[in-house]
């Protein structure tokens, strides 16, 4: 190799050397090790023992695994579309040339940077069945029909909707992304639409939405990946719901999400081989669904440049 070329390679490798080490140690090795462990009987205390496909076969018949998968799917199916609607709705409101925009934007954005442990504590308190602010506000409303508001985190049917509600409080981050996207839509498009006498709804449907479709797609994918990995809120709220007796997913496994089940399989039961098989199934599900969304986006998302 010529010396100039060698120098270029050395400089390139030199600058990227931290990442070569980091990528190998903290990403590539773990990914491959996880794949290997998924075919093994392995606890961190002993060497892994190869057992072939047994972990995957057992997963198919594992009732708790399916419960965790279904819980996660239900949560994502509620939280992702509602999150997109809420954040886009807020951004559209803020984009109406309103006065006091910075104040409103701050108000909507701030909850999204509140540390999730602290916001979980706050919502634990708000959802409290006895003294919680939410039920105190809802009680008169429910009383009109002679009912009572649900016990939220104490009720298996309402624990997931409660977590969705909490996630909606944190849509500020994607709202800011939408707002930036909306402000990039060329003014002329609106003006010509107005000249043509197009109504507000059709203008949104035929001008705004196509123009910001890449942003919608981005937020949708990020929201989906985030929702599938819901952990901290559910961990804290369910740990509080069972008064610290160690069973995760309370009440009645209604908040036993995939990552929570994975965590408890790996780090509480020390069944790390089985947990690795779960991790890989999870990886394939997320990759598959992201790929599917991408295929849809190829046809629907409008990239202007």
């Amino acid at each position, binding site marked *: 190799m010529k010396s100039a*070329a060698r120098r270029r*390679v050395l400089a*390139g490798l030199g*600058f*990227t050397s*931290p*990442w070569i080490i*980091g*990528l190998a*140690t*903290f*990403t*590539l090795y*773990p*990914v491959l090790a*996880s794949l290997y*462990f998924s075919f093994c009987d392995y606890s*961190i205390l002993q060497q892994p023992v190869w057992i072939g496909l047994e972990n995957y076969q057992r997963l198919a018949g594992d009732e708790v695994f399916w419960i965790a998968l279904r819980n996660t799917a239900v949560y994502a199916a509620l939280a992702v579309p509602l999150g997109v609607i809420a954040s886009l709705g*807020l951004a559209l409101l*803020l984009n*109406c*040339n*309103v006065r006091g925009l910075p*104040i*409103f*934007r701050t*108000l*909507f*954005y*701030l*909850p999204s*940077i*509140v*540390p999730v*442990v602290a916001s*979980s*504590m*706050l919502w634990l308190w708000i959802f409290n069945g006895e*003294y919680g*602010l939410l039920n105190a506000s809802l009680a008169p409303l429910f009383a009109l029909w002679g009912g009572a508001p649900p016990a939220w985190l104490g009720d298996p049917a309402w624990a997931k909707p409660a977590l969705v509600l909490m996630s909606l409080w944190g849509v*500020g981050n994607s709202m*800011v*992304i939408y707002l*930036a*996207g909306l402000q990039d839509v060329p003014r002329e498009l609106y003006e010509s639409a107005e000249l043509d006498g197009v109504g507000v709804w059709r203008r949104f449907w035929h001008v705004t939405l196509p123009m910001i479709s890449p*942003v919608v797609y981005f*937020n949708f994918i990020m929201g989906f990946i985030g929702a*599938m990995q819901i952990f901290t809120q559910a961990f804290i709220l369910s*740990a*509080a719901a069972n*008064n*610290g007796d160690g069973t995760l997913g309370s009440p009645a496994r209604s908040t036993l999400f995939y990552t929570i089940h*994975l*965590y408890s399989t*790996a780090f509480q039961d020390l069944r790390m081989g089985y*947990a690795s098989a779960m*991790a890989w199934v*999870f*990886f394939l599900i997320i990759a598959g669904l*992201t790929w599917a969304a991408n295929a849809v986006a190829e046809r629907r998302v409008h990239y202007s440049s």
Partner: protein
Amino acid sequence: MPKANPAARFAVYALLVGLGGLFGVPLLWLLVTSLKPVEQTMSNPPTWLPYAHYSEIGGKRVDVVLDARVTEPSVLVEDVATGRRDLRPVGSVAADNPTLRVVGMAEPGWWLVTERNPAAVGSRPIREVLPPEAIESRVQFRWQNYPEALAAMRGSPPDVPGVPPRKPNPEQDAGFPQFFLNTVIVCVLGVIGAVLSNALVAYGFARLRWPGRDVFFAITLATMMVPFPVLMVPLYGVFKNLGWIGTLLPLWAPAWFGGAFNIFLMRQFFRTIPEELSEAARIDGASEWRIFWTVILPLSKPVLAVVALFHFLFAWNDFLGPLLFLTRRQTYTLALALQQYQSQQGGVQWHYLMAASAVVILPVIVLFFLAQKTFVQGIATTGSKG
């Protein structure tokens, strides 16, 4: 954007104010709860302001807790043996009852009150029935909840004067100052590492041409697809082999080796800097390191700030990392310590829990107001470039 009619504008503002209220109320509720005395957190219906109640009892002004509102004509009785006082309906206590002595009468609308802080430790607090006009109520924020809540995060009870101090136990004696220090270490070392390493690596990808670069960069982007739960189990093994489990290292040291997303973000920025600047420096005989350090970095402050800010937020908020890798209580970060505090208190001390949560939230809010522009620009660029 469009010139809308006044009715539509009114609707927009009404919606904004209403929704703004919904978004703001939880944080306001957190603040209000954190400043209440404990019994007022559990009032039904909830109240929005913390009150202190004072009353003139036996010639001195006493800070009292309102226990219950009298709903029917009642008597205040005292157990002769124990001195305990309770409210009973009129006529339910025989006049010649040997164990109960009637010490007061109350009409509907009166209050049963208890002294908040008995003068002497262990003495029975004063308990009386009082008409509403004898009670002076005013709004008073209990700021002392904050130091009390932080003190309660300690695993072992505080030393009591007069009692010989217990044997020191670093595990249980660790309290808020230790957790705060741990969190600051993780955040500061992580931020420095993330900024330096990602800038260095991104320079190698953005400003240098070398064979293999594009393949390597493609691999880098591909690793962004891997969800953290997949890495969780082997990472634990990696840190265990490195001897890092039980120390703070797993939470900040990996940041010194770069991260795919931040490399991508910085590379995008570096590529917008005109190549002529580097060329001019090269002609002057500057090394690549010098160009990186004296030409590129000074021009890249906005993206460095974005990476620093988002890494700080990540490190401050992270819960799963500490949960997995911190095994000793004295290494806990605030996020983990707050959760442990909650699960040990069983969730009754809502005023303390909200005060401790407010302390964890406050630095993030302050940071937001100091670096608002970086926040908004950072989110917008990360969003539109994805």
